[in-house]
């Protein structure tokens, strides 16, 4: 019932961010959920008294408890990192004027920052996120001017941002150590249901794949008319093929249903149901962001999707992506609410899988111009999650290490950022074109309690591509295993869920297969463009 109420409020808000009633209802419902969280805290504390062996014995003796054994084990594990009631109470209060306050200061600094820019004879007053969005503008002059404006704007708030970052990192490291984690990374791995070995193998394979992504950036430089290397402000530049006829929404629905059906009738039927029962708000309207979003409403066994459909082939990909999220949730219906949570590394599996399925279908029948645009979007996303997030992972790891010796100056943080970006982008970008304030323009570094918002997403992208590579090898034999895997994602660790599909995430072979799929796309992109 709570989820139904919250989903309705959230959906109304996402349609119109000025809807005050929806905003107020969301606030009220969030306050209400604190009672449930308090109840869970009591339960967790009680559960912490159980030894691992005792918990297994109790859970094994009752069918209902056995159904929730994973949830109970996870809760017990989390309880091992909870401090005494008094310490938790003090910590909670101090964090309000500590990390939470630093986060708010950063968010406020950034949200009130106005950047006066002038190009094409037009003056504009833009926010930092508006400026960052211009990296995708079709006009190269706008992209260049926006990047320069971003750098200058970041420079003006560098001291405040460094103070916020130092405080947030310092508090996170101190608290996680007190909670018994070996590092902030250890804590993130734990909540991501990932182990260190999986991360190590994945990161090593990513590192080995960087030359491949650099060849994509170099090709992009060539297409945009730059000799050899890409200026960094052009990394997200759109590459559009020749103008093609817009795709009607009905046609998009047909493409998706047919593409999904080619995988399995259940997936095709699911897409048909979503379109026929009007789960999707696809009409482009002002006040509605250009993003895609899926809200799963488990109590009514349905989802709702928000997107802006303008008839481009990428809009069809986005629709397929969001329907993939909804399909993942449909594989969890019938589970109790506590058995429907899956962690970030797994959250993008079905969405990227469905998107790849439809992209392949569209690539098969598209003109070369459409194919270039589709491949560019797919590769740009993949490179973002692999190359840029690799840099962010390196930066954050080195930041925590350096922070142990005290607060870092703006110059020292800039140096860490520059080294991490150079390690990731290498010789594919023009030397010196990456501004060193990348740590200011990414709000993820300032979200208290949400460290390392990077490698779980790299995992998600690669894991999904790896599954698709396997589907291409195994064909129909893959389908049933995949469906069972999706159903198991909320009640297994990442490695255990993968093992259900005979995938060993500790082996580099699986990750290499995923990267080979991307290598094929880069090859095709180079041939067509």
């Amino acid at each position, binding site marked *: *019932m*709570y989820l*139904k*109420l919250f*989903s*309705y*409020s959230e*959906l*109304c808000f996402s349609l119109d961010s000025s809807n005050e*009633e*929806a905003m107020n*209802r969301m606030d*009220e*419902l969030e306050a*209400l*959920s604190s*009672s*449930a969280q*308090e*109840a*869970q805290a*009591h*339960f967790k*504390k*009680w559960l912490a008294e159980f030894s691992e062996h005792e918990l297994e014995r109790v859970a094994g003796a009752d069918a209902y408890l056995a159904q929730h054994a994973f949830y109970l084990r996870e809760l017990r594990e989390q309880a091992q990192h909870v401090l005494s009631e008094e310490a938790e109470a003090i910590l909670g209060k101090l964090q309000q004027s500590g990390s939470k306050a630093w986060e708010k200061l950063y968010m406020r600094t950034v949200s009130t920052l106005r950047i006066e820019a002038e190009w094409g004879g037009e003056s504009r007053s833009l926010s930092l996120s508006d400026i960052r969005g211009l990296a995708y503008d079709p006009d190269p002059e706008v992209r260049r001017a926006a990047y320069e404006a971003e750098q200058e704007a970041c420079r003006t708030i560098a001291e405040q941002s460094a103070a916020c970052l130092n405080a947030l990192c310092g508090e996170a490291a101190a608290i996680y150590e007190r909670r018994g984690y070996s590092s902030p990374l250890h804590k993130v791995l734990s909540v991501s249901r990932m182990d260190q070995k999986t991360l190590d193998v994945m990161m090593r394979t990513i590192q080995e794949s960087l030359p491949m992504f650099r060849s994509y950036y170099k090709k992009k430089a060539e297409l945009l008319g730059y000799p050899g290397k890409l200026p960094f402000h052009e990394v997200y530049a759109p590459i559009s093929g020749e103008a093609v006829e817009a795709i009607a*929404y*009905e046609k998009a*629905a047909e493409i998706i249903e047919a593409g999904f059906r080619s995988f399995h009738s259940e997936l095709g039927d699911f897409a048909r149901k979503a*379109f026929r*029962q*009007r*789960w*999707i*708000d*696809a*009409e482009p309207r002002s006040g509605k962001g250009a993003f895609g979003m899926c809200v799963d*409403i488990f109590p*009514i066994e*349905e989802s*709702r*999707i*928000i997107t802006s*459909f303008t008839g481009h082939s990428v809009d069809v990909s986005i629709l397929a992506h969001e329907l993939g999220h909804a399909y993942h949730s449909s594989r969890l219906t019938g589970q109790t609410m506590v058995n429907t949570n899956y962690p970030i590394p797994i959250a993008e599996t079905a969405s990227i899988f469905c998107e790849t399925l439809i992209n392949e279908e569209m690539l098969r029948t598209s003109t070369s111009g459409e194919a270039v645009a589709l491949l560019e979007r797919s590769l740009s996303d993949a490179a973002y999650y692999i190359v840029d997030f690799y840099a962010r992972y390196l930066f954050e790891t080195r930041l925590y290490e350096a922070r142990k010796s005290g607060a870092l100056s703006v110059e020292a943080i800039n140096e860490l950022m520059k080294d991490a970006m150079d390690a990731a982008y290498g010789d594919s970008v023009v030397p010196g074109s990456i501004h060193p304030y990348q740590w200011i323009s990414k709000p993820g570094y300032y979200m208290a309690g949400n460290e390392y918002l990077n490698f779980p997403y790299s995992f998600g992208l690669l894991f999904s591509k790896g599954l698709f590579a396997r589907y291409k090898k195994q064909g129909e034999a893959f389908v049933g295993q995949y469906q069972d895997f999706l159903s198991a994602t909320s009640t297994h660790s990442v490695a255990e869920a993968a093992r259900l599909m005979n995938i060993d995430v500790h082996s580099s072979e699986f990750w290499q297969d995923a990267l080979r799929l991307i290598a094929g796309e880069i090859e095709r992109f180079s041939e067509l463009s």
Partner: protein
Amino acid sequence: MDLTWELESLYPSFQSESFHRDFLQAEKLAEELKSWAEAHF
């Protein structure tokens, strides 16, 4: 094909009787759950 979604199967509006009723019920259940957990764990 309609490009807008259907939300009525959730609630007709924030002012609807069903939204109000569910909200009160959720409030009551959250409090009961908290009290129960305090008493038992």
